[in-house]
């Protein structure tokens, strides 16, 4: 399906609210509400016109105003892909796991928790595995984080 | 220029100096053993250099180039450097076993040279069970390898030692059977008799002509005995991080290293003696023929290393028991028929 068809199909068929972001890439980019996350994931996974069964990437981001979790999914069968993200507030960033839809999301969600501090509800094994065994300096990828021997890029005006 | 008269002259000199026959015999035997030992050490150094040059040229590069003309002194530098290395014994290692493993491997590699005929009349001791002695001694090496694997107290070393034990024991059987074919035709296990039976007829009596299958089986089994690629899983770099000699450093490692090359020379020397006519050959002195044929076999073994990929351990076992062993039996039957027909 082309970008326009995908956009149209998803916005009309999905029961929750989906916002479309204008972009120049060939993949459509949506914003989904955090409470609709699992339903949206299951919808795009099971729908026979979409069949987006492969989670390519799951990444966290801190834009300074809010946290975001970005999902890139694609379909082997129909050869198209979409991107979507959820937006979380700074003070209580929690979101649901999508392991029951895409089992490969397991370690990506652990990484998002470990580096940003966003708790993942219902995750079977939310433990630290990327940073050192005795890490106790917080969540490194948050904006404004400093730790031992962290040298921020000097502002060269 | 034959070398045997030189040793006979030294023996006569000792007798004329007044030593009794027994003492002269003892001195000359010891002298001969020391001579063979030092010859082998020099040969081992040469072989290490040769392997590096051959492997380099097969891979379209130059090997060692900076120490002497085309790097001939590279092995001397390696040996001097290994002498200076600290000798580490891990605290958790089994000290006795760890210490004696390289000694056993090194000794057994050299002990086989008592019965190898280097030329006409150039054999330290012509045992009438010559070939049986060699097979027995080369099997001792595996005890040393297993001791190295166990004594290091390291799971990779242990795996390497166990795999090596399984490999050597499995390939020993086709090796012995292929040599049995030659012994059946010759009627004697003495190395001098085996070489003498292949003399004359311009090389047409070499055992390889009538027993090519035996030769092929021998070559494959000998490559496995010497732990060379494609059967070098016990010391595979990528998988076992140098296998059973992972915890050895300095001089102990040098002993393993040299013993491997001496072993390679041993199996080539046996191939030359048993299948390729030993020191027989026109024009040139006999020891030159022996050396030439053995080095040609060594070259073939080194060629194998850089041509064939490595076999997995289960493929290795399967190959020994399901392919080589039946072929070795077929060879024995064929040789039996041949021996009857030749009578």
């Amino acid at each position, binding site marked *: 399906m082309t970008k326009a068809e995908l956009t149209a199909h998803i916005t009309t068929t999905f029961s929750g609210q989906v916002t479309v972001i204008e972009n120049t890439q060939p993949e459509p980019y949506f914003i989904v509400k955090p409470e609709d996350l699992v339903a949206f994931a299951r919808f795009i996974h099971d729908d026979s016109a979409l069949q987006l069964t492969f989670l390519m990437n799951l990444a966290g981001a801190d834009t300074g105003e809010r946290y975001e979790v970005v999902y890139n999914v694609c379909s082997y069968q129909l050869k198209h892909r979409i991107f979507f993200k959820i937006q979380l507030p700074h003070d209580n960033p929690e979101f649901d796991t999508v392991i029951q839809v895409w089992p490969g999301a397991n370690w990506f969600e652990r990484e998002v928790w470990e580096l940003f501090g966003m708790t993942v509800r219902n995750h079977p094994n939310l433990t630290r595995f990327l940073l050192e065994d005795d890490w106790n300096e917080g969540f490194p990828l948050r904006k404004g984080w400093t730790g031992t021997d962290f040298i921020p890029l000097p502002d060269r005006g | 220029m034959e070398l045997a008269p030189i040793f006979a002259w030294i023996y006569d000199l000792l007798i004329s100096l007044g030593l009794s026959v027994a003492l002269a015999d003892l001195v000359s035997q010891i002298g001969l053993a020391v001579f063979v030992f030092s010859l082998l050490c020099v040969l081992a150094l040469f072989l290490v250099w040769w392997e590096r040059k051959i492997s380099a040229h097969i891979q379209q590069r130059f090997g060692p180039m900076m120490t002497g003309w085309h790097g001939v002194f590279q092995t001397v*530098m*390696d040996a001097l450097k290994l002498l200076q290395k600290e000798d580490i014994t891990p605290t958790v290692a089994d000290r006795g076993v760890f210490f004696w493993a390289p000694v056993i491997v090194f000794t057994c590699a050299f002990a086989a040279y008592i019965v190898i005929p280097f030329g006409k009349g150039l054999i330290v001791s012509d045992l009438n069970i010559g070939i049986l002695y060699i097979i027995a001694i080369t099997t001792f090496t595996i005890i040393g390898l297993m001791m190295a694997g166990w004594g290091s107290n390291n799971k990779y070393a242990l795996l390497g030692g166990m795999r090596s034990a399984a490999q050597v024991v499995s390939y020993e059987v086709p090796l012995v059977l292929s040599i049995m074919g030659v012994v059946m035709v010759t009627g004697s296990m003495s190395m001098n008799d085996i070489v003498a039976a292949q003399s004359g007829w311009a090389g047409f009596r070499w055992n390889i002509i009538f027993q090519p299958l035996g030769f092929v089986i021998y070559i494959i089994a000998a490559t496995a005995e010497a732990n060379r690629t494609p059967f070098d899983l016990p010391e595979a770099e990528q998988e076992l991080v140098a296998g059973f000699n992972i915890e050895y450093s300095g001089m102990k490692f040098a002993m393993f290293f040299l013993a491997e090359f001496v072993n390679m020379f041993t199996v080539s020397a046996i191939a030359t003696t048993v299948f390729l006519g030993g020191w027989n050959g026109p024009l040139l002195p006999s020891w030159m023929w022996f050396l030439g044929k053995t080095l040609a076999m060594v070259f073939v073994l080194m060629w194998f290393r850089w041509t064939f990929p490595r076999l997995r351990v289960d493929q290795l076992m399967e190959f020994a028991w399901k392919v080589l062993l039946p072929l070795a039996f077929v060879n024995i039957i064929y040789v039996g028929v041949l021996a009857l027909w030749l009578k």
Partner: protein
Amino acid sequence: MGLIKKLPVYTEHIPGGSLVTTSVNSVLTMAQAKSLWYLLFGTACCAIELMATGASRYDFDRLGMIFRASPRQADIMLVAGTITKKMAPRVKRIYDQMAQPRYVLAMGGCAIGGGPFYYDCYSVLKGVDKIIPVDVFVPGCPPRPEALLQGCLEVGKKIRTLKLDEWS
């Protein structure tokens, strides 16, 4: 080996004894310099350049350097690549397992001082010389094979200047 280290003490009493010491010294250090067996410690992109240097066009074996997988049999550790703080204790452990005399060559920007990960990075150790003593630094990101070969020759030159009782 202890005997060789005590040699200068014995020979300084003999007239001309220092000649013996210096010539023994020069032979032994030359042997070390011309036969450096390296432990490939490639973690990142510099490892690819290291493998390229070991391959046919630029050959390590010309200098007598061959690859040994076990740290106990290696003389020089070529730290090629980024060392993260999680990897640092393992690097130290492998360095401790090497048999003396041992040398270290830090290859590439990351091993020298953190490289491109010096600023704004929470996980990279800023230079491998914070944990192990380094003999030669080869700059580059990654260094050309010719630069790495020169680095190895520089290690050889450094080894030749060592005295018998200075090995570590």
